[in-house]
């Protein structure tokens, strides 16, 4: 039975099933199975008692021990190494310590979804941290439970009352009915909660009420699970009675004199391990299998002993968790919960928390360190301090990772590489810091100049990256093995931080010759002396607070939990524990005695419970702290506001100020317009619908009616969420279902992403079919059919009205039109008619029928108002009368003015207006699927126009400079452009800035040495500063930093968005894999995360699609346009080469002279590199000059 966990898939139908308590000892086949597939250490979230446990001794006041009845199911929060688990008994809701050796993992396949849902349910409702009251609004958590029950019934062929299974077995029928009635009851309670939430606007709900309701819901959810368990039990019994297996008898008989109780553990550990008593639930469970087999009937003995010997040679223990794993250090395994269900104070000790906290600290130190490196200079002492802080923090992070490695050997292997990488990086940082300090001390200056910082910067960013990877892997491991408690004394991992500080002093005298040879004095900082931590040579692990196994507490189970345990058994128990205790004392003798007293107190003090649930009877919700209450309360309130305004308040994503949501609400309200008078739609259908219909029913019918409600067909299990609750993947039906939920407004971000990107993952025809399918199958659940069908209609309507692209979508009409006429028309005649009209309209109309506020998302009227009050007076233009007349004269055929005739600010403004006009007309569709890169027939006209204008502007810059023979005049023009660029940056016009800088910095212009000599140093400095802004280095780090959280009006450089979009597409696969069930591979679903990323980038661009409030000077616009046209036509193609040739003509190559750019990049590396290459350059240029015909002129 203990091996059941490894054969999840076959569990429910297996004739000797794991659920019947007391568990039947391991079937041999299963053991073989287990052998086939190397098990992984798994933290079991649910345990089931297979043996009663009723402690008779006095319970210490600090701990609560749970009495267990056979068959009780426990939700496990953590497992102590001593074998005690902190768990909540589902039957009573009581929380306390219980002996895991009386329990087995409970995870039958058909219950899996329900159990998973319960976990989410618990995490969500129990966490005092739930500030996102949207959770309560949309009832998402309810769907999981409902889907779980449905899954259970489906799996057991009992989905309908009429099924043969249900009909034939009375017990089954009764259990099924009870299960459903409990479910119905929970739904009602949830509805009440929703009402509190919704009502919070007008009337403040009593926090106590809310909490009472939540508590009630948890108990009800527990009850449902218990019902489910019983249902499954009955089912198993039924199956067994129909297919009797002789082994059943045997095992039962065996069970009589060999109850698999605690001894199993201790014996097995005694024998096979270094007497390490520490073990977690998994190993216990597994070892129990071998142990009980040993003492079991002969046939079993044979099988399992063969098995166990086999495994012990192949892999140490059948169990995955090898016997030799250093469990001493691990004290408690915790369930890693998605939300914070454990009080903060207690969480601190969880390794996952530690990991996060130390990672955060490390990053913040590194962050400020890196930030400081960008400064011009800093003193060695400052540098030293920040390096030391960073390294200390990094070391702490490593300690945590080490602890995890020590906790589980498999993880250690998995983490080895990234841990070492991080270790290397930190060392690297130390070494670089030392090098710099050394060098600065040699030169006897206390200042570290930025040039030297390159290596340090590299090392620091390396640290950031390595830490990120390492932490990601580590989290992965924690998720697998379970969270555990951990107390770290920070301890050196061989990185001697202090010595960095010492080095400069040491160094001054002895070594200045080389950076590589190191005097022995500083050996401790030398990288060689810091090998990546090998398990063997690794410094002793940080002392963790170890629960003392020899503590009186857990020994309880030894005092034979129930009288019918045979003598054989009882003698095993004490022996095992004794010996383990001895081992333990021997091993940790040094620390033990001294710390014993303190440790004792640290022992399993019952975790402070978030849940006031003690037992179902005496639990009183008012025990909740008021802080907790108010937290809930406030979150409810804010949530309800967001919901009632249905997204227009756009609280969702700062980057995605999304009018899609308001569109949505428009769409749904529009459904109420007269043409739909037949139907009275609810814009916010909710669970209250259920109660309305439900209350009309007679009591007798209620449960039956509830049945159909409860068991709605759903694809919810085919959705993937991330930890923030956003959807990251799903099958098309699941996504469509999400789009058309009956009880909540779909998430605005989700909806807009879906509309924007669906063509990337589904054909319009298939989408239409999926929507129709949704419309059809919801008929199985009449109680929600109304709202769902209305939403289906609304999705169609939104698509046709605002997101239709006839070119690609036209074929979908062949699905939509029949649907509108027949299916929809029958149910909602008005809607059917309207949809049909729309379908006819879209083909004849160009562009969206209901325009999305220009190009939508970024520009709700509110957001514009926020940044640019409409009554702001337009700034006066800098155009003098004479300038205007010059332009008029030009228009009449007079001489062409030059840029020098106009004020740089005014030119910058007009350029900005010109570019912004195009930028604002970019439609989101243009940014999808690399549309703008298509060679022919690209629909991304505005994106293309942006790049064309940008290139034209660059060419114009070059053209205006190169038009003069006189170097002095060229210099004047260059200066003018620098000023214009500077004004662009003042206007936050990064796009024009980029174009101008690119040109000024092009080889064509840069090489004009005589010209640049006449540009003042001040202007060159200004240019250098501007250039640094658009430096593509480090993925445009400077530019991105500036644009992050930038307030409009602003014209960002479009190129970075285009590159980001391209790489989101290239770097993320189209599909994701759902977590597999049992052995089977998970199914592949649409990687919605990829599309969300795409939509976010587009949203970020749209955020800036707000026009400037600047006065357009018509004459000047005309002139600029004419100049661009002139430049374009004068050099139809090959602009660059043409300009280069002209540049060569103006200032022929100087042989022998190494050119240096007047405005070198700010990056120290590129500077040095260019200089290096220039050494080659001179020979090369000489050769080239001779061969190039143009240079002879």
């Amino acid at each position, binding site marked *: 039975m203990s091996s059941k966990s490894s054969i999840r898939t076959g569990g429910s139908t297996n004739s000797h099933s794991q659920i019947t308590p007391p568990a039947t000892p391991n079937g041999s086949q299963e053991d073989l199975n287990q052998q086939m597939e190397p098990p992984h250490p798994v933290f079991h979230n649910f345990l089931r008692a297979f043996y009663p446990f009723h402690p008779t001794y006095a319970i210490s006041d600090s701990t609560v021990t749970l009495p267990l009845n056979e068959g009780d199911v426990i939700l496990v929060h953590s497992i102590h190494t001593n074998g005690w688990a902190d768990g909540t008994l589902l039957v009573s809701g009581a929380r306390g310590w219980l002996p895991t050796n009386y329990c087995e993992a409970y995870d039958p396949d058909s219950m899996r979804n329900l159990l998973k849902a319960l976990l989410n349910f618990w995490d969500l409702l129990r966490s005092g941290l739930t500030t996102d009251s949207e959770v309560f609004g949309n009832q998402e958590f309810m769907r999981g439970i409902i889907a779980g029950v449905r899954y259970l019934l489906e799996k057991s062929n009992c989905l309908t009352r009429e099924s043969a299974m249900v009909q034939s077995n009375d017990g089954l029928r009764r259990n099924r009915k009870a299960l459903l009635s409990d479910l119905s009851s929970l739904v009602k309670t949830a509805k009440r909660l929703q009402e509190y939430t919704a009502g919070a606007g007008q009337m403040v709900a009593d926090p106590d009420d809310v909490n009472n309701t939540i508590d009630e819901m948890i108990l009800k959810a527990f009850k449902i699970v218990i019902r489910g368990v019983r249902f499954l039990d009955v089912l198993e019994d039924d199956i067994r009675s129909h297919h009797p297996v002789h082994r059943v008898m045997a095992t039962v008989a065996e069970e009589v004199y060999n109850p698999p109780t605690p001894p199993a553990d201790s014996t097995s550990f005694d024998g096979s391990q270094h007497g390490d008593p520490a073990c977690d639930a998994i190993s216990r469970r597994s070892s129990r299998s071998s142990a009980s087999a040993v003492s079991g009937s002969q046939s079993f003995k044979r099988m399992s002993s063969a098995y166990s010997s086999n495994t012990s040679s192949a892999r140490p223990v059948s169990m995955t968790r090898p016997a030799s794993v250093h469990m001493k250090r691990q004290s408690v395994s915790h369930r890693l919960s998605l939300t914070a269900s454990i009080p903060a104070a207690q969480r601190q000790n969880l390794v996952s928390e530690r990991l996060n906290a130390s990672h955060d600290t490390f990053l913040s130190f590194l962050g400020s360190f890196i930030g400081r490196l960008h400064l011009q200079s800093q003193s060695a002492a400052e540098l030293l301090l920040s390096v030391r802080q960073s390294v200390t923090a990094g070391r702490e992070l490593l300690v945590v990772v080490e602890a995890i490695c020590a906790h589980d050997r498999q993880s250690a292997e998995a983490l080895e590489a990234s841990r070492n990488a991080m270790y290397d990086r930190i060392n*690297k940082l130390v070494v670089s810091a030392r*090098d710099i300090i050394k060098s600065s001390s040699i030169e006897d200056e206390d200042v570290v100049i930025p*040039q*030297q910082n*390159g*290596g340090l910067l*590299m090392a620091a*960013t*390396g640290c950031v990256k390595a830490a*990120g*990877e390492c932490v*990601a*892997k580590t989290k992965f491991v924690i998720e697998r093995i379970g969270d555990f408690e951990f107390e770290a004394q920070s301890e050196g991992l061989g990185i001697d931080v202090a010595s960095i500080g010492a080095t400069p002093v040491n160094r001054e005298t002895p070594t200045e010759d080389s*950076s*590589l040879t190191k005097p022995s004095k500083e050996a401790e900082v030398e990288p060689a002396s810091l090998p990546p931590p090998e398990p063997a040579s690794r410094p002793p692990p940080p002392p963790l607070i170890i629960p003392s196994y020899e503590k009186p507490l857990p020994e309880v189970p030894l005092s034979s939990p129930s009288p019918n345990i045979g003598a054989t058994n009882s003698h095993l128990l004490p022996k095992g524990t004794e010996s383990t205790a001895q081992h333990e004392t021997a091993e940790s003798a040094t620390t033990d005695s001294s710390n014993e007293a303190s440790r004792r107190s640290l022992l399993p003090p019952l975790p402070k419970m978030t849940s006031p649930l003690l037992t179902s009877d005496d639990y009183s919700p008012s025990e909740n702290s008021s802080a907790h209450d108010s937290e809930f309360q406030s979150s409810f309130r804010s949530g309800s506001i967001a919901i009632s305004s249905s997204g227009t308040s756009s609280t969702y994503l700062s980057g995605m100020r999304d009018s899609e949501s308001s569109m949505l609400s428009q769409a749904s309200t529009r459904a109420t317009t007269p043409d739909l008078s037949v139907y009275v739609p609810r814009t916010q259908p909710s669970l209250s619908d259920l109660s309305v219909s439900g209350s009309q029913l007679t009591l007798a019918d209620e449960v039956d009616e509830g049945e159909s409600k409860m068991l709605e067909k759903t694809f919810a299990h085919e959705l993937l969420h991330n930890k923030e609750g956003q959807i*990251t993947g799903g099958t098309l039906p699941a996504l469509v279902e999400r789009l058309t939920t009956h009880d909540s407004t779909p998430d605005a971000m989700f909806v807009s992403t879906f509309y924007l990107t669906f063509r990337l993952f589904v054909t319009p025809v298939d989408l239409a079919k999926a929507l129709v399918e949704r419309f059809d199958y919801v008929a199985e659940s009449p109680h929600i059919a109304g709202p769902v069908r209305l939403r289906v209609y609304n999705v169609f309507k939104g698509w046709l009205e605002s997101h239709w692209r006839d070119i690609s979508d036209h074929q979908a009409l062949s699905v939509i039109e029949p649907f509108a006429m027949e299916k929809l028309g029958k149910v909602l005649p008005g809607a059917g008619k309207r949809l049909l009209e729309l379908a006819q309209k879209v083909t004849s109309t160009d562009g969206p029928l209901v325009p999305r506020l220009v190009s939508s998302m970024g520009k709700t009227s509110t957001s514009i108002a926020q940044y640019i009050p409409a009554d702001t007076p337009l700034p006066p233009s800098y155009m003098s009368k004479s300038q205007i007349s010059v332009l008029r004269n030009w228009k009449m055929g007079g001489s062409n003015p030059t840029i020098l005739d106009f004020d740089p600010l005014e030119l910058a403004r007009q350029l900005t207006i010109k570019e912004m006009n195009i930028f604002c007309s970019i439609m989101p569709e243009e940014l999808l699927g*690399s549309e*703008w*890169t298509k*060679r022919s027939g690209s629909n991304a006209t505005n994106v293309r126009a942006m*790049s064309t204008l*940008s290139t034209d502007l*660059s060419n114009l810059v070059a053209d205006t400079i190169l038009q003069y023979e006189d170097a002095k005049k060229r210099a004047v023009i260059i200066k003018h452009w620098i000023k214009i660029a500077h004004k662009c940056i003042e206007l936050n016009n990064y796009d024009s800035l*980029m174009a101008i800088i690119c040109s000024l910095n*092009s*080889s064509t212009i840069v090489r004009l040495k005589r010209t640049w000599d006449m540009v003042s140093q001040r202007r060159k400095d200004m240019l250098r500063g501007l250039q640094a802004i*658009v430096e*593509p280095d480090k*993925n445009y*780090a400077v530019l991105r930093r500036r644009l992050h959280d930038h307030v409009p009006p602003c014209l960002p450089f479009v*190129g970075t968005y*285009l*590159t*980001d*979009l391209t*790489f*989101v597409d*290239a*770097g*993320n696969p189209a599909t994701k894999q759902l977590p597999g069930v049992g052995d089977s591979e998970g199914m592949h679903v649409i*990687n919605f*995360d*990829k599309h969300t*990323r795409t939509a976010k*980038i587009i949203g970020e661009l749209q955020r800036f699609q707000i026009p400037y409030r600047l006065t357009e000077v018509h004459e000047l616009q005309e002139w600029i346009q004419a100049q661009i046209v002139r430049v374009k036509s004068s050099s139809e193609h090959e*602009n*660059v080469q043409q300009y280069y040739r002209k540049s060569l003509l103006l200032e022929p190559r100087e042989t022998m002279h190494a050119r240096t750019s007047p405005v070198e990049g700010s990056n120290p*590396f*590129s500077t*040095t*590199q*260019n200089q*290096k*290459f*220039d*050494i*080659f*350059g001179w020979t*090369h240029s000489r050769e*080239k000059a001779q061969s190039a015909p143009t240079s002879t002129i």
Partner: protein
Amino acid sequence: MSGRTRTSQRRDFNIVVLGAGGVGKSCLTAQFVQNVWIESYDPTIEDSYRKPIDVDGRQCMLEILDTAGTEQFTAMRELYMKTGQGFLLVFSITSQSSLNELAELREQIIRIKDDDNVPIVIVGNKSDLEEGRVISRSKAFSVSQSWGNAPYYETSARRRANVDEVFIDLCRQIIRKDNSIHSSREEEHFGRREDHHRHRHGHHVHISRKKGENGQRRKRNGCTIL
């Protein structure tokens, strides 16, 4: 002054990936840069294009500048090119025009760097689309030879074939070139032009021989992979 930083273990290499749109450059880069552990790739962060690799025992930090998506901003090319120490010129074996476009890019690089021997690797991507091939391997190889004996690789970003190899080859070239510059710089102190010229000549021969070897080995590799 920069000597001290250069001798420290890890070096930075600025690599620029160039090529026409739609040749799969971005896939190549994303494949190379991505860590298998990263569940989803976020190209908007600073480290998105950095990757450490080991080149013949040397620790190298590659910073890759990929112009994907901005091919039409032709005036910006020089900005990219300036920062590069080595260049991957990518075309698709299924598109003749994508190879043609490389010629212009190469000329521009050479002009900007003012150096015929800029480290360059020619990459024929989409080698998994053998049925759509329009540029034969020998054709591509002869083109690459005519371009200063630049190494030619065929890659499949989709199958992750030869992806690391192209970046490593480029790093090798940069390292080799760097070393020769160091030594030539020393010689410069004495007799400038002659010495330098001589050295450069030797250097060139060295490279082309080495490249020949690479080419042969690569061909063999190619056959097994493709």
